[in-house]
């Protein structure tokens, strides 16, 4: 990766253009519109040629790390390989040229129905809606369905939802957007939902519980049977946050564990590219007793992110029933192998078998001593960048101060994983010897650590602010 310092605006020169358009043979123009309805201010877009544009964005791309560049041990993000056939399928003109409201879409509808059936088979849910565009959007949609269920029964008092303290930040945020009050349930010493802490929270105001299973510590909530029975007995529903579905692929179906509503992240479990932060897709599945509520919730403009659905369906068809059964187990064995290979140099707060991910709580020896500050999780993360690895998820979950959350996936080879382990061990040695090398990292990335404080205190948020 190399540093390149230009904004597209800085390449601009009046008179250049990067487009070709047909001639206007109609003899009419927007000048006919009343002036008071027309834009009077200049339009400060760049004026650049087509080769300028291609070279600029190619240069920008070379400052980026992606799954095709290297390994992402990024907890709760499931950064698996993005198959190339998926891209080819999504780019087929027979799909990309379709208007969302046009007739003659039998092929596109067959894609949606086929994916719906496949996801239902994999999860044990009855039916999915594909309108949600991301995981958090799926959570919100699922909670809307949960509230609708209670309201339809005239049970309007159920305005609280239980969320474990280990949950993804989107869980409580989605609950708030949905008009639900969050009640937090604590984790026990084993990192699991504390059933005794849960019991007194249950009652006639509880709409349901949001669970991630395995949870964000990568641990299977083995009391789920009892939890489901308790929540259902109090009249609530169970929501499954599918962000951590990958290790369950081929092993356990959320529907069989008693969940009524769930979302999947097609950009995690089903291999669609993250695209630098989207577009994703967060389809929501429901048990049979909630299917009739699906059409009552309209959460995006048309049919959801159809292009993402095509990719996910292609992935499932490539895997087929045989390989779907392997993906979760392979991800899990890789995670446990990394955990066992590093637990002598990184603190492992919960030493049990994990699923697809696990959490370290910082270094065993951070090199700190009198007059010398030890290396933190942030320092370890930044030093990893020097060795061609992405950082793990850091400072999440909030249960541990120096959380370092690691998730390999089933698409990483033993050689890659061994190389990562070797680098993590080397970084631990470097920290013990002299933390300053870590504190000043990265040394080999296109830039060094950015000044985030100034960015927030004196925001420069668009090109005009820089002039």
């Amino acid at each position, binding site marked *: 990766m190399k540093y390149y310092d230009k904004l*597209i605006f800085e390449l601009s020169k009046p008179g250049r253009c990067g487009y070709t358009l047909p001639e206007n043979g109609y003899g009419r123009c927007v000048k006919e519109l009343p002036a008071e309805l027309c834009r009077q201010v200049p339009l400060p877009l760049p004026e650049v040629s087509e080769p300028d*544009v291609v070279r600029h964005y190619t240069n920008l791309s070379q400052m980026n790390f992606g799954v095709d560049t290297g390994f992402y041990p990024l907890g709760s993000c499931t950064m698996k390989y993005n198959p190339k056939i998926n891209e080819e399928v999504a780019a087929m003109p027979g799909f990309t040229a379709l208007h969302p409201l046009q007739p003659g879409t039998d092929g596109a509808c067959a894609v949606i129905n086929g994916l719906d059936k496949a996801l239902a088979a994999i999860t044990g849910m009855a039916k999915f809606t594909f309108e949600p565009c991301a995981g958090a959007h799926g959570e919100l949609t699922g909670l809307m369905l949960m509230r609708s269920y209670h309201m339809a029964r005239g049970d309007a008092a159920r305005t609280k939802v239980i969320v474990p303290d280990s949950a993804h930040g989107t869980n409580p945020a989605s609950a708030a957007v949905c008009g639900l009050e969050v009640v937090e349930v604590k984790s026990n010493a084993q990192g699991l939902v504390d059933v005794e802490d849960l019991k007194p929270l249950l009652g006639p105001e509880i709409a349901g519980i949001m669970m991630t299973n395995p949870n964000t510590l990568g641990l299977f909530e083995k009391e789920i049977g009892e939890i489901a029975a308790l929540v259902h007995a109090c009249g609530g529903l169970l929501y499954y946050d599918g962000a951590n579905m990958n290790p369950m692929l081929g092993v356990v179906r959320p529907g069989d564990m008693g969940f009524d509503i769930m979302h999947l992240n097609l950009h995690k479990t089903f291999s669609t590219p993250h695209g630098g932060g989207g577009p994703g897709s967060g389809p929501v599945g429901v048990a049979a007793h909630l299917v009739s509520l699906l059409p009552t919730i309209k959460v995006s403009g048309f049919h959801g*992110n159809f*292009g993402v659905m095509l990719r996910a369906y292609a992935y499932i068809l490539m895997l087929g029933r045989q390989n779907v059964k392997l993906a979760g187990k392979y991800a899990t064995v890789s995670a446990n192998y990394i955990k066992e290979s590093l637990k002598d140099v990184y603190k492992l707060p919960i030493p049990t078998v994990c699923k697809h991910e696990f959490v370290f709580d910082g270094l065993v020896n951070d090199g700190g001593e009198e007059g010398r500050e030890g290396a933190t999780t942030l320092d370890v993360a930044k030093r990893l960048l020097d060795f061609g690895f992405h950082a793990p998820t850091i400072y999440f979950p909030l249960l541990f101060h120096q959380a370092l959350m690691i998730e390999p996936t089933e698409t990483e080879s033993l050689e890659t994983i061994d190389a990562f382990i070797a680098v993590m061990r080397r970084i631990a040695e470097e920290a013990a010897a002299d933390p300053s090398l870590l504190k000043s990292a990265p040394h080999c990335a296109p830039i060094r650590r950015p000044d985030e404080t100034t960015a*927030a205190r004196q925001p420069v948020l668009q090109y005009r602010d820089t002039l």
Partner: protein
Amino acid sequence: MAGFSYFPHTEEDLRVMLDKIGVASLDDLYSDVPASFLFRGEYDLPDAMSEQQVRDFFESLAAKNTRLKVFVGAGAYDHYTPSVIPYITSRSEFLTAYTPYQAEISQGTLRYIFEYQSMICALTGMDVSNASLYDGPTAAAEAMKMALACTKKKTRVLLSRTLLPHVIRVVETYARFHGVELGYIDAKDGQTSLESLQASLAADNVAGIIVPALNRYGIIEDFTGFAEAVHARKGVVIEYCDPSALAVVKTPGEWDFDIAVGDGQPLGIPLSFGGPYVGFMACRKDYVRKMPGRIVGQTTDADGKRCYVLTLQAREQHIRREKATSNICSNESLMALYVTVYLSLMGPSGMKKVNCLSYAGAHYLHDELLKTGRFEEVFTKPFLKEFVLNPRVDIKTLQQKLQDGGFFAALATEEGYVSFCVTEKRSKEEIDALVALVKEV
């Protein structure tokens, strides 16, 4: 055992890993899962296919869709996508990257988002833009929540009845659950009525209003007096706009509005049966800390080099949890890159030309359709590229005739009109062919 192409695990690799872990089999890694929950059946899925079989399967499905020349907008516009866009956006460094939390190795993503924000500000005339939202309708719903956050002790948000129907439906869904009291501003002669707005404002509980720049009838709305009326009651005005049209129509900034939202799809994003698209949101500087979603800012690194980071994150769910401005976690980053590359190629002159061509084609079609005697004019207000007419013939017969001739046109509206749209992709020959078919109805 032959492996599967996405999984590098050999029998030997698995043995090495299981030995290190100290378990005998992969199944032992799930010993904490109660046996009753383990799925022991066969998945109701097809057998694994070869890549060629998968390609053939999707090609056959794609062939089952009817390729039509699109003469409808209604929230999704068939503008041309220059070939540079898919070329750039399919670069794996952009496509396969994660959210740019690790700024040191994500300067490519961060830089184009900064450029995207700058371009959205340029189009809307607003001070700040976020890094994008899911789509136009959800951006409008987020703006509705933002209006409440920006104004104290006000409980109502008013929607113009001239907003596109799918925008209204999504905003209504969010409002129902978020506990927002919605009201509606009536339409008069195809445009949001100032009198109706003023009547609703009298109760003094309106946090904000949402009005469309180009409305459901394609009309360019005249907002004279709107900003003054709403600001006098300390509310905010949100404009739902077609960002492509903002190159030529009066901007939310020029109308003195507070928040601009809409769908970036008309800026080079293929129709793709409705998604992925990209929602945009821009606002006045005063409201930036109430804005949902990611925001990229410029700063310097430890060596003083110019660089970009995600900033003002104290608004977001991963920090604030239930107190965040929104639950949104992602943005539609790659689609923001589509928009950025598109606007770079088009520049100010290209954007103007796209609008001129669309305007000219739409007006030509409008006039030719009226000449057929099969339609009556509904409104006489200025429009850009989309318009409605009152059909004098049976709508279903008309639509079928056009579809059989290879056109998607004359979308029926809730009011019983038919809607048409023309972009720069439609040629005069295509328009003439469409009109010839209409004459046969």
